[in-house]
């Protein structure tokens, strides 16, 4: 962030270095007259040298809403990553275990066996 003092000095500098209304109008007329006459300088630039690089992100960044959109996308992506990471961490720290089920099953089997034994004893008696 610029400090207030820096902002003030730079604003003064910028206001000091302007073309001036009359000069700007004169130069504008000259440029227009030359373009209409086809009076171009011999020096030209290859198209590639003057075509600015641009991507969707570059274009979007040029606008306030675009900045907000890109920030939301970045937040969404990082949130999705965080969720996925947390899920995988949960799964690895608590692997699904069959132990309780096995213990439960054994317990039921044992009870059934005891019950059978008791009923047999009763019959025998």
């Amino acid at each position: 962030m610029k400090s207030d003092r820096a902002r003030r000095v730079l604003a003064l500098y910028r206001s000091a270095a302007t073309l001036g209304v009359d000069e700007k109008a004169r130069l504008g007329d000259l440029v227009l007259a030359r373009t209409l006459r086809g009076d171009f300088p011999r020096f030209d630039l290859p198209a590639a040298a003057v075509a600015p690089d641009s991507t969707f992100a570059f274009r979007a960044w040029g606008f306030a809403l675009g900045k907000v959109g890109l920030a939301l996308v970045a937040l969404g992506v990082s949130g999705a990553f965080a969720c996925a990471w947390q899920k995988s961490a949960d799964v690895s720290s608590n692997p699904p275990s069959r132990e309780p089920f096995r213990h439960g099953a054994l317990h039921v089997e044992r009870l059934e066996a005891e019950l059978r034994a008791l009923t047999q004893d009763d019959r025998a008696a």
Partner: protein
Amino acid sequence: MASRRDDSSSAAQVTRVFAEHADFVWRSLRRLGVAAADADDVLQEVFLVVHRRISEYEDRGLMRAWLFSISQQLSKHYHRSAKRMEERQRGVVTNAPGTDLEEAVARREADQVVNAFLDGLDESLRLAFYLSDVEGLTAPEISSALGVKLNTVYSRVRKARKLFDDLLASRAREELEAP
């Protein structure tokens, strides 16, 4: 017939771009070392290149980056062809009409401070700081104009701002200490 229509629509576009950005181009040329006496001519050439190339330009919100890129190329050509180096990196001439004496003095002082600061900076920092804090270009625009990565732009601007703040702070201290 169609070509004449294209030409006039292109001329109208150039007129619009000129009205919006002529000051920016002029300041940039001066900052790139084009002498005051030649800046008007080079400025015209920048807009003639714009006229010639505007059909290839897609409006991507990077107009100032494009104009700076053209200005940079033309100023290099200017330095190469004419070897007019004596005024290189000198201060920008004040063209703005002064409102009152106090403001004129403040402007002159700001002009001297900023020019001295920019002249003393390493070129990579200078252009990043100039485009960001003087001209108000966004980081992606600067990245496009200078052909450097976005992170590089941020770090250069941050570094230059720190130096500029240090300079202003030391000037303020000197003023306080002066009898």
